[in-house]
């Protein structure tokens, strides 16, 4: 009896291993590239300096879900990439956010330049209306493309009409309109930044922003517009 029980255990273990291997074959886990025939929108999440690209942790997923809800675009997971990582060039859209100041190395600047020239797009958002990140972003991105600097995007820019028609986006805590800022390469918008906690708005419903910045609805609309613009221009 005891021996039979041991044999049965071995049998069950082997079965489990075989089933597991079979499942791995059917559902490959280690998909290394983002070049999937099933998805069209995938995002890189920029890791820079000391951050892990994890501020407002689920913002990437939330952004992709937003896009999928309002369109036929299927979504895939986000992937965290360093700017010097060759995998950067596997994704035409990267998201960068944070609270604090940062400095990009020369290699990162060079990689970003190449990324923009090749057709990549960056969406950046300062978290919780903290001014340090937006200031750093403007300073660092002004180093990327010679002769080009970050400029405000007026409301007649197509990005405000790429999906939703946004006539104006008003700040929640100040009496002013929110304006996106952008960096251009040969007339093509390659990077957009919102300093008013857009990611906090569409991802955290502004709970981390304590009612500052933009409304969640405006945040969601801006995010979708930016994503659709990036895919169409």
């Amino acid at each position, binding site marked *: 009896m005891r021996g039979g029980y041991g044999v049965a255990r071995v049998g069950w273990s082997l079965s489990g291993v075989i089933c597991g291997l079979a499942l791995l074959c059917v559902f490959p886990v280690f998909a290394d590239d983002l070049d999937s*025939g099933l998805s069209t929108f995938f995002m890189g999440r920029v890791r820079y300096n000391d951050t892990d690209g994890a501020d407002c942790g689920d913002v990437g997923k939330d952004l992709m879900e937003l896009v999928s809800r309002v369109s036929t675009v299927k979504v895939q997971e986000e992937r965290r990439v360093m700017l010097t990582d060759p995998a950067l060039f596997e994704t035409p859209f990267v998201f960068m956010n944070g609270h604090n100041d940062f400095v990009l190395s020369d290699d990162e600047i060079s990689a970003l330049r190449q990324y923009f020239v090749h057709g990549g797009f960056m969406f950046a958002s300062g978290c919780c209306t903290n001014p340090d990140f937006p200031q750093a972003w403007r300073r660092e991105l002004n180093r990327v493309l010679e002769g080009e600097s970050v400029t405000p995007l007026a409301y007649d820019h197509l990005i405000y009409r790429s999906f939703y028609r946004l006539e104006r986006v008003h700040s929640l805590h100040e009496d002013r309109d929110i304006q996106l800022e952008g960096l251009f390469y040969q007339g093509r918008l390659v990077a957009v930044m919102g300093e008013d906690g857009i990611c906090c708005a569409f991802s955290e419903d502004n709970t981390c922003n304590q009612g500052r910045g933009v409304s969640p609805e405006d945040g969601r609309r801006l995010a979708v517009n930016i994503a659709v613009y*990036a895919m169409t221009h």
Partner: protein
Amino acid sequence: MLDGERKLMTEVTLQLPSAFRIALGFALVVLLLSAWSHWRRGVPLARAALLLSLRGCVLLTLSLLCGWPVRQTETTAVERRAVAVLVDRSESMALADTGPTRYAQAHDFAIRQLLPVLENEGLGARLYLFAEDGEAVSDPTGLDRQPDGHRTNIAGAVTRALGDAATPPLAVVALTDGAANQTEASVQALSAMTHLGVPFIAVGFGRDRGFPTLTLRQLDAPAETAPGASFALTARLEATAIDDTVNVELLLLRDGRLHQSQTISHRGARPFSQSFRLTETEEGEHHYEVRLVPAGARGLRILAATAQVAVRVAKQPELRVLYVQGALTWDYKFVATALRADPTIRITGLTRTGAQSIFRQNVESTGELLTGFPTTIEQLAPFRAVVLSSLRPGDLSAEQQELLARFCSELGGGLLVMGGAATFDSGWKGSRLEDLVPIVFSDDRAVGGIDQQFHLELTETALRHPVFRIGATEPATAPLSELPTFSHYGRVDDAKPGAEVWMRHPTDKGPAGRRVLMAVQRYGAGVTAALMVENFWRWRMAGDSDPAAFDRFWRQLLRHLGQAGVADVAIGLTDDRLEPETEVRFSLERRRRPADNEAGAKVFEARIEPVLSAQSPPSPVSHPGIQGGSQPISRSEPMLVRQIELSPGSPVELTFRPERPGLYRISVHGPGGALAATRTVEVKATDVELLETARDMEHLRQWAALTNGIALPAEECETGRQLIEGLRHKAEAAQRRLRESRPVGFGAWSLAALTALLVGEWLLRKTWGLR
């Protein structure tokens, strides 16, 4: 029976004796049954015998016909006492492989070996010299000629020899190097020799390895280019028998002045090309000439040292592209980015972003495409090319699919369908769109497989196509080696017959070989293409790639698709080698336009005029700078001006005869004088004789084998007697032959006889009251 032939015997045989026996057996059974029937009914013996004999004749005749009777006649020729001797005096026979020239060797062989032996054997000799045609020579002294013929026409000489006298020759002996370059009449000549029983006896002179030659065949360049656009001017060269590396210099002259030069090294015998990269900033027309200058290559013969072409620099016609996406993907963004540098290509995007929503981009009027994909030909007509991305036939109505078919076939529009596995599945089968695309779909609903990373493999056809000349410098296809890997693609079974395959998967095989990833075909007046690589935009994003190459590819691809049918009239050349003092044939075909409400003819004016004529052989090169050389001349009197009626779909063929080498322009002007089409062609004299200088024993052996003759290299045929012995044996065997069998019994007389017998039996039965 031909003249000089004598009949030996005639016999009738059955081709199907077993069929005859079976039919005869059946006939006997029928007769026995008939006889028994008559006996039972008490028919008088005489009457029964008469009826049975009539029926028996019918059945016997039919049985014989079942056996398929044929009449065979064996003949033999009356004794033939003359041999036709053909001596090749074409230019290739002037070459001296080792020692005397080939012609001198052939002449010597004929005079010292062959003719004396023929005389000793009591055989007469009919002498002929041949090159482009055959010429009878009355006596051996007539063979003292210079070998300077421009062509080698063995077939023509043979035909002349066979037909010159009432009695065909005993054999035809050809003293030649076998390098025939005029072969139109070969089939007739061989057929005649076989029919007459005249063997072909050949002695091959020369060496089996030809002389090294280099020929500048032609210069390829776009007929028209835009100011500021880089284009390639490609010299097509051909080398034969070049064992050692040779250095040659290619000089590019622009309007008579040295513009660029390149030194190239080449070895081996094959065609090759070398390109110059040019950019013209001002509108106008320029004449380009390339000169080939050997740099000290010993023994190398240059057969054609110059080639020229005219290129018109003008603003490119604007091209509108309609890009339709079934879903929001990255492809449109990157294609639109690629086109930004060319303001003459305007792209309009139509994307389905939701179940009920579409996204329009770059429309040119407020209401354009407001309801989505065009539903009328007028809505589609402003575009020259349509791209369907991630779209399947089910996403368009039957009317819209038919509209696309008309857009391509009648208006000459271009169509590109692109996508991955989700796009290219069996859902296309049976759709109207399936007819347009150059690929064959699988019957399986979804052909799947494991997607692994791979490198695209471009075919030779693609690498030679202007669409893929995407490098800023030569070689213009170099950026293609930097393509990233891809992993997802649509699996189709094959390309359609006649389609060009441009890309294949390196390893994945379908029913017809390695999977096709891109194919192109003509469809009516337009061009359609299919690209099955998903996420093609990754080429531009890849860190190692050159975005400009990607951009150039898309601009060139869309122009190719959109301009295939842009000209109102297409000028086609029938011949690929154009030479002076020969007829040049070309065709004009008018394309249908949406404004052509009536399909009637319109009157066009066709003009042919020289752009440049070579005044003299090019002057020796001394650069920097070129002294003298060909200069473009202003328009001289046109050679041909003709008013012709052209109807859509009905081409008209014209000819002209250029007297001198040079560039000629064919232009077609529509009603009101507007230019409808233009094309320049180069007419040049190439020494065809020296293109192939190797002795061609294989060709001579083929002739000998087909006529039951002999082909020997000259070094194996030291004496004429050896040749004559073989000649006699072959000649006798060839002359004793069977004439073609002819069936007998199948004709009007047989039918009439059978009918008469049957009618006769019927009348007798009726008269005697028998059933």
